[in-house]
């Protein structure tokens, strides 16, 4: 805490954002200040904003949130009958929030108000970004944010910032996911050619076994506290915007001998990777990922096409050109 205040000038600007990001990257964040740190890392707060500007931002954004939320709150049952997309979306969200992280005390028990908040924020987001809507996995991404900020409007805007970067993961055409999986295959080819050759021979180059890792930023692979630690490291964009891809390579590299010696085929590999959940040493993997990222240097960066999430999209046309899910 005492260290945290040294990053600000007298009016509350972060004077050296790179130093802050480096500090988070290597040292992590105490839970008490996470709420504020995450707002900066996600880009909801500008580093050069003052205390007063941030306070103003919060109040403006709070009323803006209420306005968007009111768009769906004001839909009457009669109107809802004629609004299939709204009913479908709400139905999906209703079903997912009651099964998101319910074993945590923050979300457990009947009529837990935080579960209602998850619901309201996600439904509001699906109106804020109507083209993208709601997709499974989003509740996983929102859950820690709400847990950390503890505030509805703040969580919403942090989630919006996160989705600016990860939205393409949920695109109907799945292009955001495919670009990232392709980049992983290129990185493995660069950093571990025996493993690459093995995957090639065994028809595993689609890297679908990394899908869950990438889609929700390893949320299902680590316990809650570790996931938060990993996320803030990834969000610093300190060594690379795409450190998560190096994390994938690092995990695969650690399992390479087992994968090859047991001659895993696509089905076996998929199951094996799924079952690594809860058994990955985060600190070791982060050290490896950092080393791989440094070692790969520009060759590594060249494996990752421009616009690959979480980089912001290159063109500013219609970001989510898609029909709504009907299922």
């Amino acid at each position, binding site marked *: 805490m005492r260290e945290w205040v040294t990053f600000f000038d007298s009016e509350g600007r972060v004077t050296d954002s790179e130093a802050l990001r480096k500090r988070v990257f290597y040292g992590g964040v105490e839970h008490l200040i996470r709420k504020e740190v995450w707002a900066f890392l996600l880009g909801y707060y500008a580093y050069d904003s003052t205390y007063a500007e941030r306070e103003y931002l919060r109040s403006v954004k709070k009323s803006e949130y209420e306005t968007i939320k009111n768009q769906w709150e004001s839909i009457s049952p009669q109107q809802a009958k004629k609004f299939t997309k709204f009913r479908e979306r709400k139905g999906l969200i209703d079903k997912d929030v009651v099964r998101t992280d319910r*074993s945590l005390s923050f979300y457990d028990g009947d009529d837990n108000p935080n579960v209602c908040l998850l619901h309201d924020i996600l439904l509001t987001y699906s109106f804020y970004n109507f083209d993208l809507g709601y997709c499974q996995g989003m509740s996983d991404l929102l859950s820690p944010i709400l847990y950390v900020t503890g505030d509805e409007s703040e969580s919403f805007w942090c989630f919006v910032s996160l989705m600016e970067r990860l939205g393409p993961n949920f695109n109907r055409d799945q292009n955001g996911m495919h670009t990232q999986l392709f980049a992983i295959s290129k990185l493995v080819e660069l950093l571990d050619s025996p493993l690459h050759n093995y995957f090639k021979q065994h028809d595993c180059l689609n890297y679908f076994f990394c899908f869950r890792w990438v889609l929700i930023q390893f949320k299902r692979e680590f316990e809650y506290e570790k996931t938060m630690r990993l996320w803030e490291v990834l969000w610093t964009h300190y060594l690379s915007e795409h450190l998560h891809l190096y994390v994938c390579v690092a995990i695969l590299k650690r399992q390479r001998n087992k994968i090859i010696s047991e001659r895993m085929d696509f089905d076996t590999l998929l199951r094996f990777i799924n079952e690594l959940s809860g058994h990955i040493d985060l600190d070791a993997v982060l050290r490896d990922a950092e080393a791989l990222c440094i070692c790969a240097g520009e060759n590594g960066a060249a494996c990752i096409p421009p616009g690959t999430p979480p980089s912001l999209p290159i063109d500013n046309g219609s970001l989510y050109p898609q029909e709504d899910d009907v*299922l």
Partner: protein
Amino acid sequence: MGSSSGQSNSYDLSFKILLIGDSGVGKSSLLVSFISASTNDLAPTIGVDFKIKLLTVGGKKLKLTIWDTAGQERFRTLTSSYYRGAQGIILVYDVTRRETFTNLSDVWAKEVELHLTNKDCVKMLVGNKVDRESERAVSREEGMALAKELGSLFLECSAKTRENVEQCFEELALKIMEVPSLLEEGSNAVKRNILKPKEGHPAPPGGGCC
């Protein structure tokens, strides 16, 4: 018919079973109800989850590897890669949500035809959530009619009360065993598995001394 979850090597046949259907129809619940009897608050499936069940059907010890897939349409390109090599497919709908039923014939059945590698693969249509009889939106007769059209088996069940849950998997397994090409795949899968440790890997896990 009994079932157990003992060592992984003590079975005669090994089958891959896929669970598909809209999001929220209860695929994961059905599976967990089959495996362990509790169905509370399962996290939405991202990609696919797996469960193994050993059971004895028709005097044979079977190992079922059950693939529980994500239901949301956006993940369809991903789920299509899961069909390869499946001997059985369970198409699940929610009897209280009519659209999950129509989607089975409009969307899922087509997916199945498109991606199946063994055309003999046995299909089973399952209407879940019959414990909510008052909310029923799809009649039993409609379910049977669709099953007939798809050439699949049919059952209604409740993952919550476990009514008919074991029957879903057992009837499917029995049917698979009646099909020679699937039976052969099932026994080859076991042979491959047993051969593996001999390829230069000592001490299979759990292997005892005699």
